[in-house]
């Protein structure tokens, strides 16, 4: 997906500090969809049924499209003449800013669905608000991505219900997945210092405003799935500031292998 570059002058409207914060934040969004898309793409050819193999590849592809628009924008914000590929392939794990949730392993299909649902529920509601961003470029990217996110959320919501209200085994697997992944869900709506600054500047939505809508959708889906909403779980954070789990290093080793082995070439 390509979003037309905004006027250079628009970028210059930001004071250097805000521009730097925006750069880091756009990277955070790009890293998030890249890493989650990477995880989903690992399913390729290994899904439980051909239709779902297709659906997961489809979602991965949407996320990758969003990733590219965001990295392209980040490269412009950085203003060093870098490309989307430099940002994806030449940064190390502690420079990656994705939340911990999206780097978690696929596990079984229930774990993948649970991870995806927790993310999609945030992503969709977030993009709806980001659409109103004072930053035109982010607003345009959100306008395209929200249509895709609506589809993703529908898919994961339906599967969460099928697994929760399916067989005893599917229910157990979903319970297990939620028990291990829930602790990563809070980071999505816990703002970092960068996010707080951008929220104050009206560039990104205040997460407090998203919470009621996210909760309402989650409660509805969990109720249909007959799954209780986990309570009192300690929430892990750090990914958005570069403090990751041990999983990310392996993802990057694989993701970046070609660019690291054959630097500076065109593919």
């Amino acid at each position, binding site marked *: 997906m390509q979003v037309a570059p905004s006027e250079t002058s628009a970028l210059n409207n930001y004071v250097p500090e805000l521009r730097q914060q925006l750069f880091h934040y756009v990277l955070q969004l790009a890293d998030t969809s890249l890493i989650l898309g990477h995880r989903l793409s*690992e399913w390729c050819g290994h899904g439980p049924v051909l239709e779902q193999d297709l659906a997961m590849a489809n979602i991965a592809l949407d996320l*990758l499209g969003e990733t590219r628009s965001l990295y392209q924008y980040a490269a412009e914000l950085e203003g060093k003449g870098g490309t989307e590929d430099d940002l994806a392939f030449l940064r190390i794990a502690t420079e990656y800013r994705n939340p911990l949730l999206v780097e978690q392993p696929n596990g079984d299909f229930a774990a993948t669905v649970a991870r995806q649902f927790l993310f999609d529920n945030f992503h969709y509601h977030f993009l709806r608000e980001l659409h109103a961003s004072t930053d035109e470029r982010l607003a345009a990217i959100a306008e395209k991505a929200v249509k895709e996110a609506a589809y993703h959320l529908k898919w994961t919501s339906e599967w969460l219900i099928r697994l929760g209200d399916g067989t005893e085994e599917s229910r157990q697997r979903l319970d297990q997945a939620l028990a291990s992944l829930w602790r990563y869900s809070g980071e999505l709506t816990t703002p970092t210092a960068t996010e707080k600054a951008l929220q104050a500047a009206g560039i990104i939505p205040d997460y407090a405003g998203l919470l009621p809508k996210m909760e309402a959708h989650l409660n509805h889906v969990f109720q249909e799935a007959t799954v209780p909403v986990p309570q009192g779980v300690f929430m892990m954070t750090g990914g958005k500031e570069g403090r990751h789990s041990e999983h990310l290093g392996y993802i990057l080793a*694989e993701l970046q292998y070609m660019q690291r082995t054959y630097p500076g070439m065109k593919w």
Partner: protein
Amino acid sequence: METVEINLEEQFQARIDADISIEPKDWMPDAYRKTLIRQISQHAHSELVGMLPEGNWITRAPSLKRKSILLSKVQDEAGHGLYLYSAAETLGTTRDQMLADLHSGKAKYSSIFNYPTLSWADMGTVGWLVDGAAILNQVPLCRTSYGPYARAMVRVCKEESFHQRQGFEIMQTLCEGTPVQKEMAQEALNRWWWPTLMMFGPKDADSPNTAQSMNWRIKRFTNDELRQKFVDMMVPQAEFLGLTVPDPALKWNETKQGYDFGDVNWEEFWNVVKGNGMCNKDRLGARVKAHEEGAWVREAALAHAKKRAERAEAA
């Protein structure tokens, strides 16, 4: 009874000869039905198994653009599998049955997917050569006598030719790149050239079903005819790329206006077909594993659908 049967066969052949497509509810000889089920399901299985060698490079693609293209291609292949399973089901089999035959090793898939993808250049070569060979096989199938198969192939061919161009473009980028990239492209061509020639199947002399399939217009060209077309089409493309086709016997033949080329290693071909290729066990193993580990997901979907239906009825 005998007379009626003969009349049906004659009428059937007359329709075939007049190029009128055969549709699911039409009478057809049992052997025609069986041949088509075998061929279409084998074709569907090839799409499914064919996701694996390319899927192997999605997480390692060298740029985000290439990664997108590859993901989208593999997604198309899953879609082709779906069309083809549907086409085969119009002949009275089921996807479950076809998959069971694949998993037990009874049904085959294209021998090419038993070769490993060892470098990024393999993504270019597979697109350029393997999809190129598939297109030569498949374009005539757009006019095959069985309507649902022909219509599936029209859709498949449109996407397939797009993939093939993308594959060629990967090769072109490598060949116009650094010496290391060019070497990567040549090395991949060296490994894939002969296996691709094998995709057209055994020599006509060793292909006993060809005559019947041609009479029924399931097949429109023989294996050797298609293999010759392929070589004639690909050699100039390899030359354009500045790559060498790994066949010392390859030579332009002015009289036949085509290339003479060396003989395929048929011993290797039959070994791969029999399950002794580099990846046969891994490919089938991955499919069986996905199916078995996905059983509880499919059961959950069925159980939930049943509960929903019951609730709807009770309400």
